[in-house]
């Protein structure tokens, strides 16, 4: 991650401009609608304006503390969590703090709210921002009182001098602090973590009042005078083009202004618009109605031959042959050849959609030599870059205002919809909102990839596993950036193939070829979804073969608590989610611990003895460790359902306990949707699903009676939280289905078996 700069005062004032802009944009978030696009204010270097030690913190002379949240809020509760790190270091209560959403701007460092990175990469930086502000306020007070800074402290928005009992507010020190030089990073002291009063507690959900009153503004909720609404008819097959069209009927729909031809997408697709015809109208209904009246003949292009059924055979063939060896210890082939018993299983997981509840929307407004964008984007800097490319404008002229995101799960980190809105705003010479329908969302997604895996184990005469071979074939995400990319690499296999600690002398991980025929993207926990499904299912199959309990087999295969070295793992390097191994090692002890904990709180042994049918799975991802136990039951009609779930997360140091818990609860339901219904299937290059009738998600009736969440107490470096809860859920369900029915499901989703 690029570190945000400790900035000069001019930068700060740039930021106070940003704050002003954002207040109007966030007026949106509080319910007011934008009456005009934000205009830049004149910069002002007067310290009387207040104290801004860095781009994240501002203290006004009246003591109002503003903290910028530079990461997108998409349901993970980041606005209720990240600013607390600054507030706690600073010594101010969250009740006194106004949280402002940061626009897209490199000065904040990385803003791509993706990969469960916000806290794990921002923890130290955010503390530094708060600690810097505290250091400067204390220096200002100590100068005033002629005492040593070390004898002062801050709390509740005041600097206090212990010996004399003197006390003064942050506001009264703002002007003096603003005149001080910003200290170097090494001269700033952090509070001991025990003094971070709110970190690790159940923090209130900052935006809850806005959510429950309908005043939280998402991408489509912003209104600009003169704004037009566009709905696009995109080629049904990616890479397709328009052959011919007739727009006469569409133009007759009252409210329709114009039909605009979009630029066709070319390889590699990256974040380009997808092509097609845009119907631009006064209101959303007119645009939708106009689109339905378009007559278009498509040239479907090369991907029209893509069929899920046939591709599955291609993937099976791919994993039946040796792939590129990425992980290797011992001699797997020889051991397998000489094994007393050989166990082999092939697992298949189809493409998966994101389907956030909020279909994509973006507004672009080009005026006065700049472009303002309001979008529910996970990645405002990618939005800036794509809009700049489309408009041929410098990036600093593109002002991306981030709204609330009505769910995202990776979909909204792509800037294709930003590309569409900016293109149309230019064409129409008016502010344009591009509105995606649910059908667009499902059919023009960047799908999580489709995968087939072949796992093979060799057992010796005592039933001990002596060889483990894991072949995996899936079109990689890299294919959207480089069209010839048709085989996963070590950076892809880090997600659950390379970082699985195994106490087996002969281990091999192989990557097999799989070309892409749709846009591939990353969905909440990405490749871990299917790697965890396969490895945990396979362990359950091995346990059954051995006649052992799954818990016992898992702990034996993982082996004793230890930090697994690269040598032990049999790999030259591990991407490790961008984090060094000494900070975030592959810790077999932590993986074991979550298994031990989840089986303890779920009364694994006792419940099994009572005849409850349980499934267990565990997985390391995004530098955190999660285990889940699922209790599965049967309805009188023979259909199965999840009755109760226990889940344990070790994410190292956590910030907001209640939001970690809510992410874990949500991950259970998300994982259930994958296990029950998750499937995008392609026929002749077209997506067969179109709305929530053909693409099902779990509903209230499917929700478990109870979800128990335990969070491991830890002072270790923070890991991810948003994604790691998902991977163990589907295999725990599938293992429980086996316990309940004796049926081993190796192809997701369960709905294809008729069991749900």
């Amino acid at each position: 991650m690029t570190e945000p700069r400790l900035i000069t005062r001019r930068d700060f004032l740039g930021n106070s401009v940003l704050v002003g802009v954002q207040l109007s944009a966030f007026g949106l978030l509080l319910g007011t609608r934008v009456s005009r696009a934000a205009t830049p204010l004149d910069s002002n270097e007067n310290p009387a304006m207040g104290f801004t030690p860095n781009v994240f913190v501002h203290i006004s002379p009246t003591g109002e503390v503003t903290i910028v949240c530079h990461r997108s809020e998409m349901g993970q509760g980041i606005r209720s969590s990240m600013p607390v790190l600054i507030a706690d270091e600073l010594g101010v209560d969250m009740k006194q703090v106004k949280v402002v959403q940061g626009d897209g701007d490199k000065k904040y460092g990385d803003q791509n709210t993706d990969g469960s990175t916000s806290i794990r990469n921002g923890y130290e930086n955010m503390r530094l921002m708060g600690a810097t502000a505290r250091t400067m306020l204390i220096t200002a007070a100590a100068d005033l009182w002629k005492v040593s800074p070390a004898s002062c402290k801050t709390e509740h928005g005041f600097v206090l001098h212990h010996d004399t009992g003197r006390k003064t507010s942050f506001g009264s020190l703002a002007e003096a602090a603003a005149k001080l030089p910003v200290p170097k990073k090494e001269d700033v002291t952090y509070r001991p973590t025990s003094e971070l009063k709110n970190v690790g507690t159940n923090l209130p959900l900052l935006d809850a009042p806005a959510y429950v009153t309908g005043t939280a503004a998402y991408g489509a909720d912003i209104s600009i005078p003169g704004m037009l609404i566009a709905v696009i008819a995109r080629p049904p097959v990616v890479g397709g083009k328009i052959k011919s069209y007739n727009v006469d009927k569409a133009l007759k729909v009252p409210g329709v202004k114009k039909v605009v031809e979009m630029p066709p997408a070319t390889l590699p697709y990256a974040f380009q618009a997808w092509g097609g015809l845009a119907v631009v109208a006064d209101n959303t209904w007119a645009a939708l109605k106009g689109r339905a009246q378009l007559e278009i003949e498509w040239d479907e292009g090369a991907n029209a031959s893509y069929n899920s059924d046939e591709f599955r055979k291609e993937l099976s063939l791919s994993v039946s042959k040796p792939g590129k060896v990425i992980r290797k210890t011992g001699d797997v082939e020889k051991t397998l050849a000489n094994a007393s018993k050989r166990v082999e299983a092939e697992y298949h997981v189809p493409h998966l959609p994101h389907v956030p509840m909020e279909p994509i929307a973006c507004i672009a407004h080009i005026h006065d030599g700049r472009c303002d964008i309001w979008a529910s984007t996970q990645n405002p800097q990618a939005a800036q870059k794509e809009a700049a490319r489309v408009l041929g404008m410098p990036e600093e002229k593109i002002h991306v205002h981030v709204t609330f995101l009505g769910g995202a799960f990776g979909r909204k980190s792509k800037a294709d919809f930003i590309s569409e809105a900016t293109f149309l705003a230019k064409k129409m010479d008016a502010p344009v909102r591009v509105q995606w329908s649910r059908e667009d969302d499902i059919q023009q997604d960047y799908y999580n990839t489709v995968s087939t895996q072949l796992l093979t184990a060799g057992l010796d005469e005592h039933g001990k596993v002596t060889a483990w071979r894991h072949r995996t074939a899936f079109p990689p995400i890299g294919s959207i950036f480089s069209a010839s990319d048709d085989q996963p690499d070590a950076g892809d296999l880090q997600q659950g193939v390379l970082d699985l600690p195994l106490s087996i002398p002969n281990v091999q991980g192989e990557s097999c070829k799989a070309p892409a025929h749709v846009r591939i993207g990353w969905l909440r926990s990405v490749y871990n979804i299917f790697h965890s499904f396969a490895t945990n299912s396979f362990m359950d199959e091995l346990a059954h073969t051995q006649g052992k309990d799954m818990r016992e087999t898992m702990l034996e295969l993982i082996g004793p608590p230890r930090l697994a070295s690269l040598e032990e793992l049999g790999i030259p390097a591990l991407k490790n989610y961008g984090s060094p191994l000494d900070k975030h090692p592959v810790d077999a002890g932590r993986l074991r611990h979550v298994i031990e904990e989840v089986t303890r709180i779920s009364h694994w042994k006792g419940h099994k003895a009572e005849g409850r049918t349980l499934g267990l799975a565990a997985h390391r991802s995004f530098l955190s460790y999660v285990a889940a136990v699922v209790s599965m039951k049967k309805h009188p009609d023979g259909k199965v359902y999840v009755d109760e779930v226990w889940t344990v997360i070790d994410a190292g140091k956590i910030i907001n306990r209640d939001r970690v818990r809510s992410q874990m609860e949500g991950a259970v339901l998300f994982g259930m949707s994958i296990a029950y219904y998750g499937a995008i299937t392609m026929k002749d290059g077209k997506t067969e699903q179109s709305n929530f009738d053909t693409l099902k998600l779990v509903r209230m009736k499917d929700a478990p009676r109870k979800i128990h969440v335990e969070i491991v107490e830890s002072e270790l470096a923070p890991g991810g939280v948003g994604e790691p809860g998902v991977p163990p859920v589907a295999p725990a369900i599938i293992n429980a289905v086996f316990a309940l029915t004796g049926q081993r499901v190796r192809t997701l989703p369960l709905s294809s078996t008729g069991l749900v």
Partner: protein
Amino acid sequence: MSKIKLKLNGVDREVEADPEMPLLWAIRDLLGLPGTKYGCGQALCGACTIHLDDQPIRSCVTPISRAEGKSVTTIEGLSPNGDHPLQKAWIEFGVPQCGFCQTGQIMTAAALLKAIPKPTDKDIEQSLSGNLCRCGTYTRIRSAIKQVAGIKETT
């Protein structure tokens, strides 16, 4: 185009619209209340739930012509100060994650409790199963409704 008169959150309003326009789009685009959400356009997800003469309806498939002379309540009009017991319980239980579906969930739950003040688990399940939540807040929604209805949670 036709002129349609309705009562929106207690206020008489007149709007000129295509009579086929779903109430959802009329409320959002023409009447300027964005708290009612578009999620599917086919009455499959419940994000657009509002009350028409006190009955919960899916506004995405209800033409505005059907609201002529009727009373429409959206999330903005559910309570004077955002203090409906369900809204308060939603905050207390930290129900929302992304929040997008929650206005529809609350409108459905409010209609349920009006019709059945002490719903059973089955009532809650039947009533709320039409409202999707991709973040997976179902268990907290259930708890919040039960608290408002004064029903003890079983363990």
